[in-house]
């Protein structure tokens, strides 16, 4: 068993980098779409054999047990090499919740299956009437003997059509005085007659997310995680690390690198106006990275992050969008063309980047919601 945290940051980075560079399949680098599991299965096997599927989990549960600093390095290297995150909702979201709030039986049963991807998870939070106002969710789960009976609808469920299980927030007490109070966290199998999945085609023409309908679907009572009606606080408890991850500079940095090679190949830098806008975007990325480093240092010192970490997401996602606009601008008459554009010996899929940038300001708490949070929790502005 390796004690990764005892290594220096540089040693650890080197080790991670070497593994990715040697083992990650070339054809999967910087995938422009979200892969189905079958597409990345051979890579997942390697990762699993190495014991690297769950970098953040404690070692006793089969994780790498990385501290926050090492974890950031791991993700930085992953993104630097264009390593796909794979179908990681189990590892990123359900696993940590079970580890923190689950029973011993739940841990013994689910955690190994998450690591091996025997179970593949999707996240069932959003509903047609519950987006930013997530606590407004209506999907009901009622106790019937040893089971919960589920009725309702989830939407925007990423990769539900390629998942075996769904973890969901459901309403278990419709009469609770506050809507946050009657919500529970439930695990359910997808492969049953009461669950109907319909894919939704995105703007870019991919089928990345779905609607999931529940019509008297069933799941064992043992699949309730944590206490009944305490799902809301549990789900919120998980957000802290995700908030810095979603604000990391890598998406914007990668896009900027692409923009630069593309613009150079296209001669866009001959135009002083374009040069200036490129410089603006590049400086926006550089200065964001400086701000990100401050938060990362906080984590490294073992401090917990405050609500102010939201500013990273606001800045970097909007910056990412501006960069992809510049790619379209540099593409000129090809700015509406689907698929990779060839310039010299590189090819850049301008529209794929553009589409990828759009939802970053919507999911993970929309940027407007992040601004609401900052204005109240950080600036102390009233009501």
């Amino acid at each position: 068993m390796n004690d990764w945290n005892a290594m220096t940051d540089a040693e650890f980075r080197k080790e991670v980098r070497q593994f990715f560079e040697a083992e990650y399949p070339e054809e999967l680098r910087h995938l422009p779409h979200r892969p189905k599991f079958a597409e990345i299965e051979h890579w997942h096997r390697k990762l699993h054999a190495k014991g690297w599927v769950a970098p953040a989990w404690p070692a006793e549960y089969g994780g790498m047990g990385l501290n926050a600093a090492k974890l950031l390095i791991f993700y930085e290297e992953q993104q630097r090499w264009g390593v796909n995150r794979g179908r990681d909702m189990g590892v990123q979201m359900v696993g940590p919740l079970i580890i923190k709030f689950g029973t011993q039986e739940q841990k013994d049963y689910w955690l190994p299956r998450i690591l091996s991807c025997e179970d593949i998870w999707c996240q069932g939070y959003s509903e047609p009437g519950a987006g930013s106002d997530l606590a407004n969710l209506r999907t009901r789960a009622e106790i019937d003997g040893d089971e919960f009976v589920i009725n309702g609808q989830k939407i925007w469920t990423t990769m539900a059509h390629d998942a075996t299980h769904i973890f969901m927030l459901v309403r278990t007490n419709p009469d609770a005085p506050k809507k946050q109070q009657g919500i529970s966290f439930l695990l359910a199998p997808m492969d049953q007659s009461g669950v109907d999945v319909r894919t939704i085609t995105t703007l870019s023409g991919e089928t990345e997310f779905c609607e999931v309908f529940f019509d008297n679907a069933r799941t064992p009572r043992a699949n309730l995680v944590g206490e009944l009606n305490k799902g809301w606080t549990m789900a919120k408890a998980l957000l802290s690390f995700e908030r810095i991850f979603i604000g990391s500079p890598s998406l914007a940095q990668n896009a900027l690198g692409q923009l630069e090679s593309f613009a150079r190949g296209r001669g866009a830098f001959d135009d002083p106006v374009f040069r200036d806008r490129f410089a603006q975007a590049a400086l926006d990325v550089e200065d964001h990275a400086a701000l990100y480093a401050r938060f990362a240092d906080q984590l490294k010192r073992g401090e917990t992050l405050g609500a102010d970490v939201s500013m990273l997401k606001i800045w970097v996602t909007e910056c990412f969008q501006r960069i992809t606009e510049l790619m379209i601008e540099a593409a000129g008459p090809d700015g509406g063309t689907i698929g990779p554009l060839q310039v010299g010996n590189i090819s850049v899929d301008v529209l794929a980047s553009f589409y990828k940038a759009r939802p970053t300001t919507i999911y993970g708490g929309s940027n407007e919601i992040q601004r609401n949070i900052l204005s109240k929790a950080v600036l102390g502005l009233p009501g």
Partner: protein
Amino acid sequence: MLSSEQDDLRLLRESARMLFERAGGSGRARKLRDAGGDFDPEMVRELAEAGVFGVAVPEDNGGLGMGLAAGGIIAGEVGRVIAPEPVVLTIGLSLGLLRRLCPDHPKVPQLISGETVLAVAWQERGPGGAPADATCRYAGGKLTGAKAWVVGAAGSQGFLVVAQGDDGQVLVLVEANADGFVINKRAQADGSSLGELSFSGTPAAELASGRAVQDALAEAVVDATALAAAELVGLSERAFEITLDYIKTREQFDKPIGSFQVIQHRAVDLHVMCEVAQAGVGEALAQMDGETDPKIRARLASRAKARAVTAAKKLTRDAIQLHGAVGYTDEFDVGLYLNRALVLSAWLGDDAYHRRLWFEAREEEGAAQ
């Protein structure tokens, strides 16, 4: 755990802040402006006692040897109270030149101790003009010609002038009361002035000559640019605090205006811009301290100034808007911050100018690799 270096910087920040607060904060800046726009020589001496001017001068030459990042911290505090004292001018330009060209000259300790203030005159045709185009000539102990955009000309005891000598450039010292020397003052938005100097056979003492003058000047300008960026960040930070207080207390429609979502989101954007500027400019200055290649240092300074001006523009303009009509009066302090930001933004190149330099430097580094 913070390193001891970070601890030193924190202490430096705290003592500079206390000194300025005790002296009256931004209210002092208003009084000085109303009294004619000069800085306060007494304050210069107090700052000197706190070690402010020698902060970036090596210890062997009587300074603190703490580097540019420390200078930036002080400049940030100057910006917070929009103090008119020539802090960036002295740390960055006058001492920046002398410590590089003639560190043993008696003016060095005088500048560090605040006994004297020297303005620096090198430009004749704007920040883009190459020093080699200079027409102001020095020969046989006399200076003839003109210089412009001289900051701090009004209260200085003397001038460091970069001129054309017989063999390339020279740095000379001109006393403020020298014969054949006229200063024309152009009023600036913040109450300070820019000097236009004309010399006709003015007596001057040569301090240095040759290629070294050009190099030292370039580096001093780079330092001053980075420090001006730090000053703008401090200014922006304080302009934001004033605005945040205002929107929490000003009521309309029976509520604090800070309860309206549009105002809240604008306030958040200002806050985020401020934080990005602080982080970016702080990082740039810290990296400059660890870097010896003048070209890379210049690129970092341009990064800092580009960000700082962008931030200060947004912060000070929006601050006025969020104050409503009182923001348009001379009575409220935010206006002082706007006016100071106008002056500091224009000095040594604005954001567009520095983005261009930054881009060109980056291209050059890329091509060299």
